[in-house]
């Protein structure tokens, strides 16, 4: 490894051997499952190495303030402290950021722009010593009024700037047809103003990792991330190191959901390790984690739809305002998604959308599962229900009447080239069996449950529908690709495929799918998954529901290349690999893989690029900006205690088209989990912010669904192949997170008759809320 000393931590990530069966379309079990149930899987917080120190971060208590002075001398003098670092100690570039924005300071420079912004670092013998040393860092502040008005940031040029650049980070318009003429002719007009609160990814494994200084002056980093190579592009310049001197290994990731796209402790731990010459481990606690990563953008959305009396939408006039907080993170792309998917999967002839992302001193926001499409989906689906009510139609019919299908031109002008049987999926959702009527005899079935807040009086049942359209893979002209290296050789007498990628397994089951693809393409049983690291090419991010598509595509391509080289050694041209043997269609079994390979290894590395996309036109938003679109339909059934405002989701049903099922067991888990996060946004999850400060940074006060909150689910999974994608598959992780939220809120509206323009819906919205006007 480039001459660095071999100082591998105890409990480091290692190869996972995957014996057994299960190709594409089967449901083999997770290869890392046994380690995980035994407590032996090496998460990034579990790493341990001799002589390691503990790193800790001092964060700003203020959302906006100037740093007049910092005095670290008392902290440095504290026994057991080995280093105290500030921005002056950043070895290279002092800013990092996604998408070449480079606007986020590694450590605050003279001012802070959000509560929790990192200011100084400590390395100490014990985490408690590090914590006490942080308290001894003396800072003289000039506290300023935080800039927290997203609307003024977007539209008022006199509003002070959060950064040096203008406050609007991006404005993306979409223009189709002639909205003004359509407005004059519309028979029915419905309007709505909708809000989405800040949702947190709330992955269970907080940010953590280990930095080990190397003899070559570089550093070995063991971290939990979604995209190692993109981390590296930011870490290298900030540390003043070439990428070749930074060896990254993916450690066990305790969930991600977008919250690990941005850097957290990576540069900090490396700086402390390089300064002290000792390995440094950093582990955030839950409180710090709420400040350690970006969140889902809160949104304020104004919608106006015009339609014919029979419910055909003739125009949409939409404004979406997304508060990105202090730094850019993924805001530019989140705005692109909100704009391009602002009216969802509906065929609308005249469209005006303006989506804005702005800087404020509120908490920084960026990627979270659904990424800009979630916010818009809550609004456009709420609008469909309003339209249904205004036209006297039921919610399914009004959606079917306006549903997109293969060949429909979306708001961006992009034509849906693949099957999209939305009207049929809605019909399926409608006709699925309904859950049983409320059995109030068992209080656990009631809203409020064992708290005994009701015995059934005041409880109303409601049913609602939601449809969500999500882009899969990276959009807007990005050259999106993944890389895979596959090596076929005989190990211990058995043909074995070694699969090596940099793709992050974050819990979604990518390692399972990689092994399935290798088995299908190479006809082997035994597959070994190499730990993900940066000793192989870029795999892109484990986000945008893209890894089965992109890294799956790369593994498939590398396997095909290996297979081609294997077949070159043989004379037949009608060969295939089945059950560890090379089979000729004409001559039958030729030989076993072991016989053909002998002592040789065949290794091939391939990149897989998806079909190119284009940017969105800056004025009209037009362009083929997405490479794949995926749809999910939800039906929600709820019981609502209308007197206390308590909601019990009774059942969620989902109909999703995944193109091709690669692994049903994992896929169902994705739909369940995505639906649960949508449920959280619908009825409980919000980071509450006042004057730029987070009021509930804990699992005591920020609630995520428990097993009591999550209802049984019914799933209908369709397989209408996308001809462009590997095996015809569609990304599946995000669509259910879009559609479950509006379906649940629609069901609550159905039960209560209330307007409910904001998520999460809180008890007071139900007990004190206004009816639909």
């Amino acid at each position, binding site marked *: 490894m480039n001459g660095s000393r071999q100082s591998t931590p105890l409990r480091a990530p290692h190869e996972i051997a995957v014996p057994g069966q299960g190709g594409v379309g089967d449901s083999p079990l997770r290869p890392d499952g046994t380690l995980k*149930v035994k407590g*032996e899987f090496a998460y990034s917080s579990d790493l341990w190495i001799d002589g390691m120190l503990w790193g800790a971060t001092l964060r700003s208590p203020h959302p906006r303030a100037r740093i007049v002075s910092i005095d670290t001398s008392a902290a440095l003098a504290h026994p057991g402290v080995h280093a105290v670092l500030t921005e002056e100690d950043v070895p290279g570039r002092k800013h990092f950021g996604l998408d070449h924005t480079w606007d986020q300071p590694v450590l605050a420079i003279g001012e802070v722009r959000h509560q929790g912004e990192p200011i100084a670092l400590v390395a100490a013998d014990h985490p408690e010593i590090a914590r006490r040393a942080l308290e001894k860092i003396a800072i003289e502040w000039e506290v300023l009024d935080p800039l927290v008005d997203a609307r003024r940031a977007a539209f008022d040029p006199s509003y002070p700037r959060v950064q040096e650049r203008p406050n609007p980070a991006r404005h993306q318009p979409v223009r189709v047809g002639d909205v003004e003429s359509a407005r004059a002719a519309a028979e029915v007009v419905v309007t709505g103003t909708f809000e989405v609160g800040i949702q947190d990814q709330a992955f*269970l494994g907080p940010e953590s990792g280990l930095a080990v200084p190397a003899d070559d002056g570089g550093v070995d980093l063991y971290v939990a991330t979604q995209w190692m190579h993109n981390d590296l592009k930011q870490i290298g310049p900030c540390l003043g190191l070439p990428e070749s001197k930074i060896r990254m290994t993916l450690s066990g990731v305790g969930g991600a959901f977008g919250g690990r796209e941005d850097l957290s402790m990576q540069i900090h731990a490396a700086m402390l390790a390089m300064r002290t010459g000792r390995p440094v481990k950093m582990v955030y*606690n839950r409180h710090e984690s709420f400040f350690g990563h970006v969140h889902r953008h809160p949104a304020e959305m104004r919608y106006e739809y015009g339609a014919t009396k029979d419910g055909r939408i003739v125009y949409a006039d939409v404004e979406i305002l997304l508060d990105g907080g202090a730094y850019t993170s993924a805001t530019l792309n989140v705005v692109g998604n909100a704009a391009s998917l602002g009216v969802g999967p509906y065929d609308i002839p005249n469209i005006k959308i303006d989506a804005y992302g702005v800087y404020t001193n509120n908490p920084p926001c960026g990627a979270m599962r659904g990424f800009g499409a979630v916010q818009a989906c809550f609004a456009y689906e709420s609008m469909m229900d309003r339209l249904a009510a205004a036209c006297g139609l039921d919610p399914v019919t009004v959606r079917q009447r306006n549903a997109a299908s293969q060949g429909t031109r979306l708001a961006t002008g992009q034509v849906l080239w693949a099957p999209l049987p939305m009207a049929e999926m809605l019909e399926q959702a409608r006709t699925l069996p309904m859950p049983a009527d409320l059995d109030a005899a*068992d209080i656990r079935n009631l809203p409020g449950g064992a708290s005994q807040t009701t015995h059934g009086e005041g409880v109303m049942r409601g049913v609602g529908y939601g449809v969500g359209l999500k882009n899969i893979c990276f959009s807007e002209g990005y050259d999106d690709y993944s890389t895979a290296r596959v090596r076929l050789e005989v190990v211990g007498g058995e043909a074995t495929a070694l699969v090596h990628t940099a793709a992050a397994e974050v819990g979604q089951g990518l390692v399972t799918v990689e092994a399935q693809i290798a088995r299908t393409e190479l006809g082997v049983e035994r597959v070994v998954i190499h730990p993900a690291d940066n000793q192989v090419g870029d795999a892109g991010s484990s986000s945008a529901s893209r890894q089965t598509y992109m890294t799956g595509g790369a593994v498939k391509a590398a396997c095909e290349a290996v297979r081609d080289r294997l077949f070159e050694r043989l004379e037949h041209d009608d060969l295939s690999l089945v059950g560890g043997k090379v089979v000729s269609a004409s001559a039958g079994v030729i030989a076993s893989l072991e016989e053909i390979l002998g002592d040789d290894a065949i290794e091939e590395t391939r990149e897989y690029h998806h079909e190119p996309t284009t940017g969105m036109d800056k004025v009209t938003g037009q362009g083929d900006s997405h490479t794949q679109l995926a749809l999910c339909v939800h039906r929600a059934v709820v019981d609502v205690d209308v007197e206390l405002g308590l909601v019990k989701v009774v059942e969620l049903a989902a109909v999703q088209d995944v193109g091709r099922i690669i692994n049903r067991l994992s896929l169902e*888990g994705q*739909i369940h*989990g995505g639906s649960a996060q949508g449920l959280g946004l619908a009825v409980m999850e919000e980071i509450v912010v006042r004057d730029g400060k987070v009021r509930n940074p804990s699992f005591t006060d920020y609630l995520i669904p*428990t097993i009591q909150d999550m209802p049984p*689910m019914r799933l209908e999974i369709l397989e209408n192949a996308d001809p462009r994608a590997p095996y015809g598959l569609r990304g599946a992780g995000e669509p259910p997170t879009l559609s479950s939220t509006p379906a649940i809120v629609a069901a609550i509206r159905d039960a209560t008759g209330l307007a409910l323009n904001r998520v999460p819906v809180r008890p007071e919205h139900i007990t004190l809320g206004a009816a639909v006007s």
Partner: protein
Amino acid sequence: MRVNFTVNGRTEAVDDVWEGESLLYVLRERVGLPGSKNACEQGECGSCTVYLDGTPVCSCLVAAGQVEGREVRTVEGLADGDRLDPVQEAFVECGAVQCGFCTPGLIVQAHDLIQHNDRPSDAEIREALAGNLCRCTGYEKILDAVRLAASRKAALR
């Protein structure tokens, strides 16, 4: 201070423990048992659940000194060598594991449930696991796993 306790049948005498350390910290950082997870450190998520004298507790809420002379059993102590406990086996088989960070705590809690009740209703499973947060699975496969493990246990009777 020194803390003497038994963990997974092994006697431990742990030196240099700071009085403010939790049982979770001692397990993870001092006796090499990082299976129990630190996800909230305030008893809300259940990821650090271990048996203390046979009762499931959040080890993040137990001060290290409180375990003096007592018996702890962690997720690492459930399997019999390479043979998984039926609850562990069912979690893998049913797809109840995704990122797996909540898994150790859920397995200890489910193990406790099934010890006392090998024919739990869904409502009983939900009640027993209500203190264990999972962010990945939506809990459906976890219910499947507990049902399966319980039915296997019941079949052995």
